[in-house]
C-alpha cells in the first residue's frame, strides 16, 4: 500500500464550475471515479455563503464527500490584507481572519490548511497555539517563483523550529519543478503574435536554465520583441526549476502537495513538470501525504479550444500510478524517517 495518496483540488475544475457546466458534487464524483479520493477545497470558491457555514451545512459537506467514498485533505485559505483601500489589515485582524479559517477547517474535519505564501511567518507563529488546539497543520504554499530554499520560505521553517511545533510548515506547489517550458504557454504566445524563432529562443533559454533577466533583456531590447514575445520572456521569472531531491530534506514539514500542471500529453506524461524526479524523491524518503492535482491549463487554451479538465486530471493520475509503482520498485516502500 502506497503512503502517497492521490487526490484533487477543486481548483482543477475552475473552468467548468465557472461556466456552470459542473457543480462541486460532479467534481467529487469524477475524482472518486479515478481513485483520487482526497478532496482539496477552496471554501471561498466552493462555498457561496462563506464565511458563514451553519453546522447543518458543515454536515452536508461531509456527507456529500463521504457519499462518494471521498474525504477532505486540505483547505485553501485566503487573507485579504488589502480589504480596505486606505488601511491594510492590522496584525490582530490578520490573526483573527486566519483563526476564522482554522476554525472552519477544523469543523470540516480537515487537517491541512494551505496558507498563501505572502502571509508573514511571525503572524503564523502567533497563530500556532490555535492551530495546535484545533489540530490543523498550516502549510505555507511554496509557489513559483519561490522555491524550497528561498529565504522567505526558510523563515517559516525557522519559525516552526523555534516554536517546536508540528502545526506549522510548508505545502509545496509542484510548479517549482518546471524542468521544461510548457508547450501550452508557447502555443498561446504564438497565437498572440510571438514569432516562432523568438519563441524557440525563449524555450531554449529556459531549457538551458539561463537566468530569466538575461533572456528578457535579449528579447525586449536586442531583438526588439513584440508585446507577446516580451510577455513570454517575462514568464521565465515565474518558471523556476528547483532541485526535486531537496523534497526529502523538507519532508517532515509537509503532508500535502499541490500537484500543479498545465497540460498532460495523450500518453499521460507531463511535458513540463519533473514528476518522475519528484515522485522518486517522495517515495525514496518515505513521505506520507496526498498528491493533489491542481490543473491550471484552462487559461492557456480557452481562446482556441474547449477545456476538458476531467480528461487532463485523469491523465495526471494515470501518470501518478505509473510513477509511484516505478519508484516503489526502485526503493521498496520505506518507513518515514
Amino acid at each position, binding site marked *: 500500500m502506497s503512503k502517497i495518496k492521490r487526490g484533487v483540488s477543486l*481548483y482543477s475544475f*475552475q473552468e467548468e*464550475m*465557472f*461556466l*456552470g457546466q459542473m457543480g462541486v458534487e460532479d467534481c467529487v464524483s469524477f475524482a472518486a471515479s479515478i481513485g483520487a479520493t482526497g478532496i482539496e477545497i*477552496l471554501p*471561498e*470558491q*466552493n462555498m*457561496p455563503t*462563506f464565511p458563514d457555514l451553519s453546522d447543518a451545512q458543515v454536515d452536508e459537506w461531509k456527507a456529500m464527500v463521504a457519499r462518494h467514498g471521498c474525504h477532505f485533505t486540505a483547505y485553501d485559505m*485566503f*487573507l*485579504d*490584507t*488589502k*480589504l*480596505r*483601500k486606505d488601511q491594510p489589515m492590522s496584525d490582530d485582524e490578520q490573526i483573527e481572519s486566519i483563526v476564522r479559517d482554522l476554525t472552519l477547517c477544523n469543523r470540516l474535519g480537515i487537517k491541512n490548511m494551505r496558507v*498563501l*505564501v*505572502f502571509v508573514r511567518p511571525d503572524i503564523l507563529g502567533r497563530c500556532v497555539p490555535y492551530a495546535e488546539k484545533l489540530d490543523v497543520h498550516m502549510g505555507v504554499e511554496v509557489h513559483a517563483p519561490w522555491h524550497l530554499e528561498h529565504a522567505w520560505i526558510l523563515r517559516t521553517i525557522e519559525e516552526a523550529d523555534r516554536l517546536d511545533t508540528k502545526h506549522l510548515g510548508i505545502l509545496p506547489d509542484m510548479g517549482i519543478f518546471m524542468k521544461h517550458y510548457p508547450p501550452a504557454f508557447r502555443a498561446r504566445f504564438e497565437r498572440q503574435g510571438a514569432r516562432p524563432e523568438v519563441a524557440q529562443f525563449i524555450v531554449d533559454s529556459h531549457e538551458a536554465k539561463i537566468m530569466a533577466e538575461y533572456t528578457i533583456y535579449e528579447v525586449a531590447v536586442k531583438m526588439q520583441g513584440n508585446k507577446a514575445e516580451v510577455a513570454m520572456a517575462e514568464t521565465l521569472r515565474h518558471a523556476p526549476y528547483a532541485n526535486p531531491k531537496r523534497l526529502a530534506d523538507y519532508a517532515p514539514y509537509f503532508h500535502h502537495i499541490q500537484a500543479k500542471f498545465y497540460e498532460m500529453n495523450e500518453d499521460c506524461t507531463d511535458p513540463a513538470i519533473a514528476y518522475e524526479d519528484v515522485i522518486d524523491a517522495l517515495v525514496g524518503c518515505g513521505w506520507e501525504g496526498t498528491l493533489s492535482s491542481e490543473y491550471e491549463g*484552462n*487559461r492557456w487554451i*480557452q*481562446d482556441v479550444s474547449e477545456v476538458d479538465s476531467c480528461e487532463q486530471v485523469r491523465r495526471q493520475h494515470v501518470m501518478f500510478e505509473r510513477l509511484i509503482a516505478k519508484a516503489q520498485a526502485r526503493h521498496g516502500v520505506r518507513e518515514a524517517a
Partner: protein
Amino acid sequence: MFDKYIIDPSTVRNTGPEDAPDGFAFETKLGYYRGLRLSMVEELNVGIDGELFARDAIRFDEGAGPLTLYEMETTYDRRWAFGAPATIYVNCPGGFPKGDHTLSLQQKLRISYMPFPSFNNDEKQIRFG
C-alpha cells in the same frame, strides 16, 4: 483567467421607460477563481466602441441591491461569489445604441497577495434594437 467570459452578451437590455430608456444593463461574472468582498472590486470600466462611461454612471448589484462604485469601496459585508452573475447598470440616456457596437468591460480587482492590481478585460459585439 476568465476574461473572455466576463460579459454575458445575451443579457444586454435597456432600463427605464420603454419609450425613453435612461440606460442599459448587462450581466457579468467576476474574473477570478474565488469570490471577493465588494470593497476589493475597485473599478468596473464600461465602454461602447472605445468610449468609456464616467465612474458615477455605473451601478453594481450582485443581488443585494445596487451600489455606486463609491459605495462599494467601503462595502465589506457583501461578497460577489465565484461564478455568480451580477448586474451592471449604466446611466446612458436613450439606452444602448441601436445597431452593431462593441461593449467593453474592465474589472480592476485588489487581490491582497498580488503586488499589483488584477485587470480583467472583455469585449463583445452587440447587435441591438
